[in-house]
């Protein structure tokens, strides 16, 4: 059972996850917001810089306003709620936290309890 992060308004489900460089194994722990609206996981640019990730591709990313931006694609390993996912395709944006998209969340059983401000993320 995890608690919502209440320092953001309105409170949101956040998890500390580990992002691992697939070649150097350099690792950073970073807060990640569970974002069921995102089809792809997004890393903060500061995290990409900290891990010295090399771009491996590009994709068109549509934002909330429908605006399209071409953004770089990276591949990273993730450690989420005790589970390791390898070679996950991600992109980046200038934001302080990770957006954990459905590409990652769909590996889990996610139960949100907004009234109680708690959530569970389990591997089936």
């Amino acid at each position: 059972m995890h608690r919502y992060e209440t320092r953001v308004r309105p409170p949101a489900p956040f998890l500390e996850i580990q992002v691992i460089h697939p070649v150097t194994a350099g690792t950073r722990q970073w807060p990640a917001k569970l974002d069921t609206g995102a089809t792809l996981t997004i890393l903060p640019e500061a995290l990409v810089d900290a891990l010295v990730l090399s771009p491996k591709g590009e994709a068109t990313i549509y934002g909330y306003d429908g605006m399209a931006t071409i953004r770089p694609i990276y591949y990273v390993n993730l450690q989420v709620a005790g589970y390791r996912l390898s070679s996950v395709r991600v992109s980046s944006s200038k934001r302080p936290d990770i957006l954990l998209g459905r590409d990652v969340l769909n590996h889990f059983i996610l139960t949100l309890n907004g009234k109680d401000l708690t959530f569970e993320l389990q591997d089936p």
Partner: protein
Amino acid sequence: MAKTVTLKEAQAAYSLSLHKLDLEQAPLILEHNGEPVAAIISIEDYRRLVARQDDDAWRQEQLQRLEPNRAAFQRLLPELLKTHKGQFVAIYKGEVVDSDSDDQELAKRVMANLGDELVYIQKVEEELPSFEVPSPEVVIYHAPL
């Protein structure tokens, strides 16, 4: 609606009354000789603008690193559409070095073989793959976590 202040002489000293709330609604345009020469915007709009510019510069620098493998992909695309359509290919030093129907498996293999060399991995399609990320992309006011 933006307000306009006309500057009669560019070098003259002016006294402007700036109201934070007004600037949050619309910029104040400064005009000289009938031409808009500057805009005064709210500090929030300015920070948003700087954040957007930083993001654009960072993104362009990252995308630039994909060259020349990206250009090679574009050059090879007509032929790849005949031989690898729907597959992911890895381009290294201007040539296809591997392919797979699963880009994550391909990336894993490529990085096992080539380490962190600059490789361009892309799906062989006429258009770039697209994703939706409806959360605002540029967030500058955020509680530190």
